[in-house]
């Protein structure tokens, strides 16, 4: 049979953003896949070298459109490490609650993307609606719906408004109460299971060789989670579990994402109960226009909703960073793992596998 070259994306319904794949196909079987990023390369890392430490926040959150909050967190952590700033106890709890909200938000968005792509419109609408409820809480807290810029080196920008936690609990109950419906219509639906089970298998050995993190490892039964390995903020003061599966396919990956979301909701409840009643929420930092940070370097990491997120940051003792390099989970998932996972699969499953790997294109390009 004749080999053909097929361009998949960036204008394709099954594509998750500004990203494309060049497929070499024989019939409808994929022989080779070439990931093709760069449609959204904005050179943020270079731009950040030209701006002061504080001015970089509006850039940082735009690296990952779906989940800007962990980007703020990792950059704050990097600056704190370099400048040797401690976060007050209450600030730590507020940060963790905020990041878990972001995780639920991001997973709901992912659920929307997956169900929408497979044609489960009802579930997609639900997920979008529930995400919107959570965005209302973000708006109340920070003033922004998508980009929040709530974190800063040394803590958070301001305290929770009055009655915020009660409203947050109500919203999360609303979302959590819908989980049985999600299960019935989507996760346990035989139509969905037939599409997702046994598709896009990335086994443990392959995943490790390709540098995979996050839910790809969790779908292989590995509890690799930075919140446990290297607890930051308030994660060492709360009990939580890391959901795993053993199927290693698209279906298992989606189940770990669902369970992770439920676990996050529970964790927020536990964190709210434990917030210290009084105290500062941030440590004072010097005037941002004159703030110089001593020369040095650091590598910090946290667990975003897609996996291990790292930041290598270097200061030369000036008012601006000397070098910033983000290690985003989608980078390996979208470039190396995806190319491997697509080999031998069907054309019809390309979007399916890609979304199950949870790739966000802006994160690859940066």
């Amino acid at each position, binding site marked *: 049979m004749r080999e053909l070259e097929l361009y998949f994306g960036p204008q394709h319904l099954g594509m998750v953003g500004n990203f494309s794949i060049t497929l070499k196909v024989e019939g409808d079987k994929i022989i080779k896949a070439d990931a093709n*990023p760069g449609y959204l390369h904005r050179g943020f890392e*270079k731009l950040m070298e030209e701006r002061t430490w504080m001015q970089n926040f509006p850039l940082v959150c735009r690296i990952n459109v779906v989940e800007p909050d962990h980007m703020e967190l990792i950059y704050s952590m990097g600056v704190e490490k370099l400048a040797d700033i401690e976060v007050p106890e209450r600030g730590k709890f507020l940060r963790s609650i905020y990041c878990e909200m972001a995780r639920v938000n991001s997973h709901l968005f992912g659920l929307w993307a997956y169900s929408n792509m497979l044609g489960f419109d009802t579930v997609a609408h639900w997920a979008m609606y529930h995400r919107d409820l959570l965005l209302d809480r973000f708006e109340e807290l920070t003033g922004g719906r998508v980009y929040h810029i709530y974190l800063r080196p040394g803590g958070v920008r301001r305290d929770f408004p009055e009655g915020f936690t009660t409203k947050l609990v109500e919203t999360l109950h609303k979302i959590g109460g819908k989980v049985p419906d999600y299960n019935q219509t989507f996760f346990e639906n035989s139509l969905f299971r037939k599409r997702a089970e046994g598709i896009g298998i990335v086994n443990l050995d392959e995943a490790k*060789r390709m540098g995979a993190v996050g839910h790809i490892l969790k779908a292989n039964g590995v509890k690799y989670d930075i919140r446990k390995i290297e607890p930051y903020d308030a994660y060492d003061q709360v009990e939580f579990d890391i959901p795993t599966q053993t199927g290693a396919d698209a279906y298992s990956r989606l189940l770990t994402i669902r369970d992770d979301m439920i676990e996050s909701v529970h964790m927020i409840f536990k964190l709210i109960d434990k917030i210290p009643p009084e105290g500062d929420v941030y440590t004072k930092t010097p005037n941002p226009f004159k703030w110089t940070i001593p020369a040095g370097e650091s590598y910090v990491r946290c667990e975003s909703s897609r996996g291990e997120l790292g930041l290598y940051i270097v200061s030369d003792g000036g008012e601006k960073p000397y070098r910033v390099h983000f290690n985003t989970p989608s980078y390996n998932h979208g470039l190396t793992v995806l190319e491997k996972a697509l080999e031998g699969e069907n054309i019809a499953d390309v979007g399916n596998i890609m979304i199950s790997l949870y790739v966000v294109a802006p994160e690859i390009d940066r």
Partner: protein
Amino acid sequence: MDELIKKLQTDFDGLEISTLAKTRITISTKKESILLLLSYLKRMGYDHLAIISCNDWIKDNELELVYIVSHYLEKDYGPDSEIDKFNIIIKTRIPREKARFVTVLDVFENAEPYERELHEMFGIYFEGHPRLTLLMLERNYKIPPFRKDFNTKKYVDDLYGNIPTIEERKKGKK
């Protein structure tokens, strides 16, 4: 941590080891021993290459390659097991002009996109890399864009500076 440093220093010559934080070690080494060191660490269990980065130290006329490796943990690790939470930062310097280095693809397969990115952004040629094509950019630049001497302002002016503003265009029409 001390055990690890001692072990590294007995097995390798010329390593400059320093501790950056509680769980971070920095190793500066000659460029010849990078491959050996990485495969040695991989055998020791540091099987996750987190990132390959590069610093442009323009004052010293050198590029600094940075490899960061860590453990993939398989068991349920609690917060007690310290040794496995380490991130090791390995650094080496190469000259800026005609920058060349060897690929580490044989040791870590996921180094592929990182090396491709460094090739286009910093102009480092990785010997033995099978696919050193452009990753993000559309074309090659005379000065690789992430180097410190690449002037972004001048680049934008050269590229877009000749396009008249709306006001200028209106004036021109009249």
